[in-house]
């Protein structure tokens, strides 16, 4: 935790004004573009005739959270090489989406992932839809709490550890904005804030990275040399193992984390929902290409920012402000551009976590309203107006749930929560997506087993890991029930999720699905109903 206020008061005031201005403008635009008619397709998918660039920006905005901007740059600043590897994983994750998932899912999808699975397993779609909704709700809530807790952590950079009232106020205000955007604006509103955020994020990161390089006369080698000199660890700063080195379990932990990040992205509910938005799969392809390029550029810039923070400020200054390094970008901005740049980047960080939270809330709300309410509870007989009301209400409920959980768990580590969400996505939802799209024999029993099994396995392993007990930074440092040595469950839970899906299918002796269902699904997946 932070002991002293990192940054001066004037930039906090400036940040406040800037953030309010941006939020008010975007909220206004979001309400103007909000769905005017009671059409669920508009609420779920938004404007479907956007250009590939704008779709790509929205995807990039949905994906890059404050954890990338603050957390991973901090990781680079403190651990050098290991942090850079982490940033690489963040980018590589998009390849899986581009090459395997995006177009087949788009051709077979309608509003939610549940629709795709229902097209493939029409007879037993209801239990699968329930399981999908449960997993999506778990992922979205965890990730939403991570964003809200992140807003408190960000405030801490300015005021020191905030009082209970300040903390509550911060979480409630951000949470209220999230609910407003998601429930009133729907997907069109979320798209507005994603695009604005993505443009600001890309411009801000690349501009600051350029400034850092300018300070070193555009010579990357000088930057590396200076960063290694001032890192306090010398050359080993540019060698692997500073953070995840030493013991084998440490190294496996890192592999586990990378596995969850690389595979988890393709199964994050808000990213999946974004993939369904473009009208044709040609537009989708170009959109994902844009997203890959933009995310790559931001991650590249973030690496330069992290190295620059160490090179210009030194490890001691960063670590004395915040042990986790989350303050490094803000300190760097203060060193380079004074309180104006600091305020700009802080505002950017707030906007980033707000936008990601909106995307998540919307994805969870659409899954609850469409999969759970409309298709399971009302068995497909709900009217559009009814479903829309449920979607708006569940957006509010999820937002309030997130606020309450964030107030209880405000001391939690943002990165830990986010990584757990990635692990659940990769081990519960990804096997179902892959099997649904590419395995002919896949049955509903396999889907149920891998969804519930992957979810349970990753949560249980996290509970019995050093994240929850025994380690000094855990929730219960005094007790020790951590028999699972790794902090990230991915390396065990992801193969297990795939294995359970296979096992459930092989052992399924019930009545088989219609073989025409799979044929129709495959024709639709490859040929498509549209261009």
């Amino acid at each position: 935790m932070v002991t002293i206020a990192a940054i001066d008061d004037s930039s906090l005031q400036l940040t406040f004004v800037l953030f309010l201005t941006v939020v008010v403008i975007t909220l206004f635009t979001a309400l103007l573009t909000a769905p005017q008619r009671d059409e669920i397709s508009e609420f779920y998918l938004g404007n479907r005739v956007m250009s590939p660039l704008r779709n790509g920006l929205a995807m990039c905005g949905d994906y890059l959270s404050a954890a990338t901007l603050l957390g991973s740059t901090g990781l680079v600043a403190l651990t050098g090489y290991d942090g850079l590897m982490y940033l690489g994983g963040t980018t590589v994750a998009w390849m899986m989406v581009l090459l395997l998932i995006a177009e087949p899912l788009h051709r077979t999808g309608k509003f939610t992932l549940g629709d795709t699975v229902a097209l493939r397993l029409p007879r037993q779609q209801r239990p699968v839809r329930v399981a999908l909704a449960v997993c999506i709700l778990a992922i979205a809530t965890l990730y939403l709490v991570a964003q809200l807790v992140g807003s408190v952590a960000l405030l801490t950079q300015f005021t020191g550890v905030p009082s209970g009232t300040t903390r509550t106020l911060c979480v409630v205000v951000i949470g209220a904005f999230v609910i407003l955007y998601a429930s009133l604006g729907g997907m069109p509103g979320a798209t507005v804030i994603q695009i604005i955020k993505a443009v600001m994020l890309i411009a801000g990161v690349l501009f600051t990275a350029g400034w850092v390089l300018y300070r070193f006369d555009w010579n990357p080698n000088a930057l590396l040399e200076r960063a290694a000199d001032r890192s306090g660890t010398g050359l080993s700063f540019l060698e692997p193992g500073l953070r995840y080195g030493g013991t084998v379990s440490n190294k496996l932990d890192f592999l586990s984390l990378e596995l969850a990040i690389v595979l988890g992205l393709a199964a994050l509910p808000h990213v999946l929902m974004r993939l369904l938005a473009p009208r044709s799969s040609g537009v989708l392809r170009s959109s994902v290409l844009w997203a890959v390029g933009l995310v790559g550029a931001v991650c590249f810039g973030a690496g330069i920012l992290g190295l620059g923070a160490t090179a210009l400020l030194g490890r001691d200054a960063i670590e004395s402000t915040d042990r986790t390094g989350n303050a490094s970008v803000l300190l760097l901005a203060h060193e380079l551009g004074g309180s104006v740049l600091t305020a700009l980047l802080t505002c950017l960080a707030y906007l980033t976590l707000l936008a990601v939270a909106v995307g998540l809330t919307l994805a969870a709300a659409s899954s609850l309203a469409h999969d759970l309410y409309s298709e399971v509870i009302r068995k497909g007989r709900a009217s559009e107006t009814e479903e829309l009301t449920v979607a708006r209400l569940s957006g509010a409920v999820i937002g309030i749930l997130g606020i309450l959980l964030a107030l209880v768990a405000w001391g939690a580590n943002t990165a830990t929560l986010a990584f757990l969400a990635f692990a659940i996505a990769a081990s519960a939802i990804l096997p179902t997506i892959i099997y649904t799209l590419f395995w002919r024999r896949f049955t509903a029993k396999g889907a149920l087993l891998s969804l519930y099994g992957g979810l349970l396995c990753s949560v249980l392993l996290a509970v019995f890991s050093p994240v929850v007990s025994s380690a000094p930074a855990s929730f219960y440092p005094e007790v020790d029930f951590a028999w699972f040595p790794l902090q990230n469950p991915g390396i065990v839970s992801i193969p297990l999720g795939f294995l359970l899906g296979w096992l459930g299918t092989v052992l399924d002796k019930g009545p088989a699905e219609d073989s025409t269902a799979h044929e129709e699904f495959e024709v639709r997946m490859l040929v498509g109903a549209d261009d």
Partner: protein
Amino acid sequence: MPEFPPRRDDTPTFPLPHIEQTPPARISDHPEFHSLRRAQRRFGTRATVLSVGGFLLYVLLSSFVPAVMNQPLFGRLTIGLTLGLGQFVIMGVTAWCYVRHMRTRVDPLARGLRSRQHENDNRRARSAAAPPQGAGQPLQHGTRGFRTW
């Protein structure tokens, strides 16, 4: 079982003039459909294994054989850092290959099958409409003659 309405149904519904033989009744039996599936699946799997597996291999190498990765190449740039930058290059190349492959190998096949599917649908709709009208023989004759021969 919910029937998903087709996304957009405003494509022209005229039959294609140049079809030499009667195509299989179902698109999924068509040989072109199988080659389409093979083309898409094979490339997707290979490219994913190359880019994602390559990255995971890089992480493993960095963790378990740091001695190799720490060889200096160029100033402060080690083999490990260069390979890290190389990941971005591999991603760019893979994405470019993917787009080229889809544009040249997959899209034309899919487009052809799609128009064939439309044509099949039209024929089915026409033959379904025929039986109720008992004296539809000359009418049906005329349309069939136009299409196949």
